[in-house]
């Protein structure tokens, strides 16, 4: 009797409570839905955002790589252009020393056969013209900008000589802009050529 009772109790407790498939189905549906809604979907949108961010980073990295390659190309080109750089430095020197400009005008006057009557050049820059240790150490590290030398030149000669001098100034390797021209009669049949000029350098 006791044995039978316990068998009956065991049967009645075991099966319907724990193994009821309908409860399992409901539980599984609920768990799946909650898991999807609260865990998978946020994670998926987070992943999508990360993928977008990664695409942006990849693009940036590719751009930087391209820029670095371009920089390297330019450096190679710079290293291979010594002659052009020489011409560039001649046209627009990095140094604004006025003495060099005087030498140039004197040389041009001599080549054209005119007499240099007067040469007056000044620079508005207050930067050092010599003994600049920072510029001497790292000439390309200093902050440079376009600077102007302004002045006037008077030369004396015949009309052809003056024309020759004018052409030499205009086509000089160093850029010299003539802003005003004046020609008047001098002594002994010569003419005076008066020029107002600007020249430039790329310095401090």
């Amino acid at each position: 009797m006791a044995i039978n009772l316990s068998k009956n109790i065991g049967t009645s407790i075991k099966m319907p409570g724990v193994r009821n498939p309908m409860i399992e189905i409901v539980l599984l549906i609920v768990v799946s839905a909650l898991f999807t809604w609260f865990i998978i979907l946020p994670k998926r949108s987070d992943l999508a955002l990360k993928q977008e961010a990664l695409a942006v980073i990849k693009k940036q990295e590719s751009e930087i790589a391209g820029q670095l390659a371009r920089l390297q190309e330019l450096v190679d080109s710079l290293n291979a252009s010594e002659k052009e750089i020489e011409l560039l430095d001649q046209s627009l020197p990095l140094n604004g020393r006025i003495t060099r400009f005087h030498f140039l005008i004197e040389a041009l006057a001599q080549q054209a056969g005119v007499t240099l009557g007067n040469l007056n050049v000044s620079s508005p820059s207050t930067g050092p013209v010599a003994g600049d240790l920072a510029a001497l150490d790292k000439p390309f590290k200093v902050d440079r900008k376009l600077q102007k030398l302004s002045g006037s030149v008077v030369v004396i000669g015949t009309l052809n000589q003056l024309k020759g001098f004018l052409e030499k100034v205009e086509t000089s390797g160093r850029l010299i802009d003539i802003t005003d021209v004046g020609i008047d009669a001098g002594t002994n049949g010569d003419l005076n050529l008066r020029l107002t000029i600007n020249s430039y350098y790329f310095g401090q």
Partner: protein
Amino acid sequence: MPEINLLKQNTSSGSFSDSAPKIFAWVLLLVLICLVGFYVWLYFQSKSIEEQAKTLQQSMANKKKEALEMEERDELLTRQAQLKALTGLVGGHVYWSQLLPEIAEVTLKTASYASLTAGGADGRISLETTVPSLVDLDKFMQVFDLPQFNKNFNDIRIGGFNKAQTKDGSSIKFRVDMKYNPQIIQYEEK
């Protein structure tokens, strides 16, 4: 016999309706396992993307550093700025020597110039001129009414008119002020 058959049919139908929810439960369990698997995949994918982003950012930082520390970079930037400045200046460079032959072109043989002044922003030339007579002065001015001559010089103004008497005869001195075509002092390829 018919009773037995009826009993058999009832039994088989009952066993299917019993096992269907179980099968469905198994399917749902499988779906849940798949969802967990998907989550695990998402997790590792996310980690992998984070790693990739970290690597790329490091690579970008290295490349930037490499570019900044490149020895010739400062020279390159200076040269670029220098060249840019020069290009701008060359564009505005003028050739006054080209003006003289053009003036000679429009000048009468009997006229002579004592002085010439040109320049400034207004693009005008001033000439101190001498001609032998008023007839020559009239011819001098007429030249600029002709289209082939006034394309480069126009808006002629006469000032400081003065008739001088010398032992060789008389002469007319005057100042001519005129506008020139700025193109004649621009660079022309020969």
